[in-house]
C-alpha cells in the first residue's frame, strides 16, 4: 500500500517536473518569437510563475515531509512575491524610458505586429 503510494507520488512529481521544464522551454521560445519587450515579458512570465510553481512543487514531492520541503515552500513564496515586483519595475522602467507598446487595432485589422511572422 505504501509502495503504491510512493510510486504514485514519484509519478506525480515527475509529471510536475516535466511540465515545468516544458513551460520553461515554451517561455524561452516565446521570448525569442514575440516581437517587442512587453509581449516578450509575457512569455518570460510563463517561466517566472508557472514553471517555478510546477518545478518547486515537484521538488517538494520528491523530498517528502522534511525541513528541505519547508525551505522549498519558503523559496516558492519568496519567488512569487519578488517575481511580479521585479517584472513590474522592469515594465515600468521600459514605459518611463519611452518605449511605446504596440497596440493592435480594436477589431478586424491585426496586421500591426505582422513583421514578426
Amino acid at each position, binding site marked *: 500500500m505504501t509502495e503504491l503510494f510512493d510510486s504514485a507520488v514519484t509519478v506525480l512529481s515527475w509529471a510536475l517536473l516535466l511540465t515545468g521544464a516544458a513551460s520553461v522551454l*515554451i517561455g524561452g521560445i516565446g521570448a525569442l518569437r*514575440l516581437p517587442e519587450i512587453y509581449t516578450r515579458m509575457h512569455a518570460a512570465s*510563463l517561466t517566472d510563475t*508557472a514553471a517555478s510553481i510546477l518545478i518547486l512543487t515537484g521538488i517538494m514531492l520528491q523530498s517528502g515531509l522534511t525541513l528541505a520541503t519547508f525551505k522549498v515552500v519558503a523559496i516558492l513564496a519568496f519567488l512569487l512575491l519578488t517575481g511580479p*515586483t521585479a517584472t513590474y519595475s522592469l515594465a515600468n522602467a521600459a514605459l518611463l524610458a519611452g518605449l511605446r507598446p504596440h497596440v493592435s487595432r480594436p477589431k478586424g485589422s491585426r496586421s500591426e505586429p505582422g513583421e514578426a511572422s
Partner: protein
Amino acid sequence: MIPTSETDASASTDSETTATSGSPTPLISLIGLFLVLVAAWLLWSGLYKPLLLTLGAISCALCVYLATRMNFFETTSILPLLPRLPLYWLWLLKEIALSSLEVARVVLSPRLELSPTIVDLDAEAQTELCHVILGNSITLTPGTITLDIYKGRLVVHALTAEGAAALKEGKMNRRVAALEAR
C-alpha cells in the same frame, strides 16, 4: 471588527504625518515580527553555535528597527487579510494555470495571433496593500502585466484582446476588494 481597513489606513496616514519618528507601535507587533524573524533564521541556518545565534539575534533586531523606521507597522496591516488569503491563493493558482495554457497556445501557434491591448483599471479595493496585491496578481498571471499603478489606478498590458476583456470584466478586482471587506 466593523471598522474596516479603510479607516485603519486613514488613521495610519494621520499618525504618519504627525509623528514619524515616535513609536506608537504596539509592543506586541514588534515582538511578533521579531519572533517570526528568529524562527526563520533558526530554520534557515540549522547551526546552533553561540556566534551564529548572536549574529542572528542582532540581525533580527536590526530588521525590526528598520521596519519601524520604514513605517512598516503603520502602512501595512496584512493580519486582517490573512484568514481570507488562502482561498484567494487557490483561486489565483487556478487563474495562473488557465492563463499559462492560453499563453503557451499563443506562443506555439504557427501564426502568432497577438492582439496586445492596454487596459486602464480602477481598483475597487481601498487600501494600498490591496492595490499591490491586485497589481502583483495581474502580473503573476501570464498574459497580463501591470505597467503602472498610481493611487488605485492601474495600467495593464495584455497579450491578447481576450485577456484584456477578461481583466476588464473585473473578477480579480472584485476578489481582491473582497479580501479587505468586512
